[in-house]
Structures are given as structure tokens and as C-alpha cells.
């Protein structure tokens, strides 16, 4: 199998943004949802405060690995939106629910690097 260890063709910076995205989602859930917090504590014996600080450390660490230009863009998006990277499904950006031109959406295998939605500014990840 090529499977889950295959990162060929994936822009490393996009990969970092996706990691940040998922870490931030985990962090947010543990901070804002009592149900999530209780569940992690009760069933998985996770200390939510410890988990949050671990996630914060990880987030800071990965942010440092972003290319300065991308990091600047990322820093602009973060305060405004819950999500930094949004999927594009069937040509529709899930950050703003606007159908975006295929030229912007591009081919996920193209070497064009990290792409963003020209309408809402979020970094985009094209989902099949």
C-alpha cells in the first residue's frame, strides 16, 4: 500500500497548515465544549488542562515552521475565522460557500503550492 504514509505531491507547507488546522480544532473543542472535556476525562482519562497546554505547545512549534509569507497570511486569518484551511468540495469553498473558479481551485497535484480562496482568503484544500 502507499496509503497513509504517502505524502508525495503534497505541498509541505499545506501539510503544516492542515496539521495546524486540526490541532486548533482539537484545542477549540477542549476549550469550548464541556461535553468534549468531560468525555475525554471520563472515558479516556485525559486531563483537559494538560491536553490544552500540550496542544498549544505543538501549535506554536508548527507555526514556526511556516514560511514567513504563509505565516503572515495565517496570522491574518486566525483572528477572523475558525478555520484556516477549508476544503473545497465540488468547486465550492467551505470557508465562504462561494463557488470558486477552477483556476483558483486548481489541480491538487499541481506544484503551485499553497492555494487560497480569492473570495474569503482561507487556504484551501481540494477534497475529492
Amino acid at each position: 500500500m502507499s496509503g497513509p504514509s504517502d505524502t508525495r505531491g503534497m505541498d509541505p507547507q499545506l501539510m503544516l497548515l492542515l496539521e495546524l488546522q486540526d490541532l486548533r480544532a482539537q484545542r477549540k473543542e477542549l476549550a469550548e465544549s464541556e461535553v468534549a472535556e468531560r468525555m475525554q476525562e471520563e472515558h479516556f482519562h485525559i486531563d483537559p488542562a494538560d491536553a490544552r497546554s500540550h496542544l498549544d505547545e505543538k501549535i506554536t512549534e508548527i507555526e514556526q515552521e511556516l514560511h514567513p509569507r504563509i505565516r503572515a497570511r495565517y496570522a491574518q486569518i486566525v483572528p477572523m475565522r475558525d478555520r484556516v484551511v477549508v476544503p473545497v468540495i465540488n468547486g465550492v469553498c467551505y470557508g465562504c460557500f462561494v463557488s470558486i473558479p477552477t483556476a483558483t481551485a486548481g489541480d491538487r497535484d499541481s506544484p503551485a503550492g499553497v492555494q487560497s480562496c480569492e473570495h474569503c482568503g482561507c487556504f484551501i484544500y481540494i477534497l475529492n
Partner: protein
Amino acid sequence: MKLRQLFTLEGVNLELKAETKDDILKELIQLLDLDDKSETILFKTLKRRENLGSTGIGKGIAIPHCRSLVVNRLRLAYGRKPEGADFNSIDGEPVHNFFLIVAPPLEVSNQYLPVLGKIAQFAKDPDIPTHLQDISTPQEFLDLLEEKAP
């Protein structure tokens, strides 16, 4: 939402081949039938959750779970490893039953946490490990959910 409705026959593997924690996660991910890149991202995210603490909740059961933008709806899979595998479980015992839960970052129906709770509850029924050990087809797994997690 009944658990039975969230699983498919294709999402059930009663004979996991993988031996290590990482490989088991990968084999479970493959049950979701995503593209390679999505599999890679999901693997990283699940690993990250495992780094906070194992999702092996004891009694031979693990519930790896996360939110990830590689799925656009709640996805579940079940894998069984009859001989068990080390998953750094809370009780230190080998894990035989793996329930994978992946939800998109935002869901309209907000099923993720309730479903995670339901699976944890289901898994805590003392009879469940024996029942899971006895099933011989994916259909029987779905039937067990229908019966035990109404």
C-alpha cells in the same frame, strides 16, 4: 441516530493484519476508503490525538477518534484483532477491538460527541467483548450493534 446506521459492511474488518499501533491506525483508516493524501493527513491527526493519551479505554477496546477536514461527514469503522495488539491502553492490556470515529471540523447535525459517547458506553457493557469475539461476519457486527446499541 443509531450506531448501526453509521457503519457499513465495507467499514468492518474482523481480521486486522497490522501488529503495531501505527500500522493498526493505518489499516483502520483504509476502511474509510479515502484518497492517499487524505489518509496521510488523517493518520497524522489521529496520532496527535493518541499523543495526548491513548484512546485504548481498557477491556480490550480502543476508540481512536478525531475531527479532520478530510471527511465531509461523520465516518466510522470497526476493526478486530483476535490475538490483540499493544495500544498503550489505560489498563495496559492488549486491544482486540478498535472503533474508529472521524468527524468533519464542523457538522450541521453535531453527531460526533454523542456518537463517541455512545460507542464508549457500548464498549463498557461487560458482555460486549465476548460478543465481539464471537461474531464471524461483518453483518453479525451490524446485527450486534442493532441489538445492543438501540
